[in-house]
């Protein structure tokens, strides 16, 4: 892979963010809104519930970790959508750029924007509600890693979906985290779900993160074996998402979709 070409994809997005506060603002505003909303809710629950239960790390922490996954996914898809919105596919793909380099550029862009979000959420949650991510101990690293890999996989799969179905299918992409969250057990143990939902949850890497998080908050040891399973699943999904993107791209090259791609022709 050529580093210059990968850097070009990242630089393009950097230029857009540098010259456009409208693009930077959402990185922080949604995190801030979630911290405020869920921070006050957990504070209220703490005031009415039994003293030994602390909802801050269990609920606010869960929301922020889920937010992190969502930001990672959106970091990848937003970078892709910039090419959709400017109808830039012909310019980008009629070059020496390889699909793997393009995807790597999108992923690095997702890393950058999600790290900014992560820093903002950690600082804001700490300052406003006293939530320290250190509460999760060393398990925080695998928590974030599994969510990060899953977010990248979702982002790449979503980009492939839009490439395949056309720009209008962008509206199918935004609700993906919302649709997945009930199955992932973000706010409740997976065991309270009906059997078929538990079966779906077992296939979702984030469910292992949130089960692990609740165990750590309850003072139990982190379920490392489950986290490894979640990490393995996330890697499998990432590989599958990349293969899906490559397959859709090859189809688009065969049918001429790349050259014709525009809102008017496909929506």
């Amino acid at each position, binding site marked *: 892979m050529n580093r210059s070409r990968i850097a070009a994809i990242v630089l393009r997005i950097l230029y857009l963010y540098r010259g456009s506060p409208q693009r930077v603002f959402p990185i922080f505003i949604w995190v801030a809104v979630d911290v405020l909303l869920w921070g006050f809710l957990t504070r209220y629950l703490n005031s009415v519930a039994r003293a030994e239960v602390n909802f801050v790390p269990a609920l606010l922490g869960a929301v922020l970790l889920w937010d992190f996954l969502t930001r990672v996914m959106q970091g990848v898809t937003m970078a892709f959508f910039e090419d959709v919105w400017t109808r830039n596919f012909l310019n980008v793909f009629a*070059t020496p*750029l390889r699909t793997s380099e393009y995807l790597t550029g999108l992923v690095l862009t997702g890393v950058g924007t999600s790290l900014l979000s992560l820093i903002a959420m950690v600082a804001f949650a700490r300052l406003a509600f006293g939530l320290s991510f250190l509460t999760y101990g060393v398990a925080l690293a695998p928590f974030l890693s599994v969510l990060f890999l899953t977010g990248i996989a979702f982002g790449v799969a979503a980009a492939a979906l839009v490439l395949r179905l056309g720009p209008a299918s962008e509206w199918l992409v935004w609700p993906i985290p919302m649709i997945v969250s009930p199955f992932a057990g973000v706010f409740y143990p997976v065991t309270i779900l009906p059997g078929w939902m538990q079966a779906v949850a077992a296939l979702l890497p984030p469910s292992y993160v949130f089960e692990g998080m609740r165990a750590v908050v309850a003072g139990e040891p982190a379920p490392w074996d489950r986290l490894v399973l979640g990490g393995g699943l996330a890697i499998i999904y990432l590989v599958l998402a990349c293969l899906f993107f490559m397959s859709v791209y090859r189809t688009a090259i065969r049918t001429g979709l790349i*050259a014709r791609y525009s809102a008017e022709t496909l929506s």
Partner: protein
Amino acid sequence: MSPPSPPVLAVERLAKSFGTLKAVDDVSFQVSAGEIVGLLGPNGAGKTTTINMILGVLEPTAGRIAIQGVDLRADRSAALSCTNFAAVYAPLPGNLTVEQNLRVFGMIYAVENLTKRIEEVMAIYDLSHFRRTKAGVLSSGEQTRLGLAKAMLNRPRLLLLDEPTASIDPSAARDIRAGIAEVVESGRCGVLWTSHNMVEVEAVCDRVLFLSHGRIVLEGDPKTLPQLHGAETLDDLFVSVAHETLDEGRRR
């Protein structure tokens, strides 16, 4: 004696079908360094389909494309690194400035001494004073010049120009034609040029290929080809080929 260098573009028995429609049908031609070849034909003749296949964004149903001796299918990245293109239907991202666009695409083409090269192409295409202007607010003529500047960034061995002077005033178009001709005369670059402006084609192209229904129906020197086929001008010849195409289409 050194062996002859390969043509910058070799197209062999190229074909593309969409279902039962043969958009390009058994097309073969070459473009040598120092040569401008016009690809002509009425709308739907297969010009853009051919160009898209050469640019690697459309997979041929059959045939082979080699750029600078490198098989496009075997090593797409290497083949396209010595190619570039400008087309009116592929404007550069309007939300980046002129300089940012050139830098991003310069990096994609791994251009050496990029900053210096960007200054050079901006000067050549009179874009220096627009360096911090977003491409989207440029006039259509200025956007065309930006597309050409991008196309020249990597000093391509093969340049594909799809209606390169459309939406440019006659004076600027003449300057641009002269600039491209100068690059070609250096003997390093070959150009495949599509245009509906037959005066321009006659002035610029060393050779033309007429496409109709995806096939090459005429080929030759644009200055002598009309007389050889009983037409007064290249424009008349184009109209005659287009009418035959229409008639043939109706018969089908």
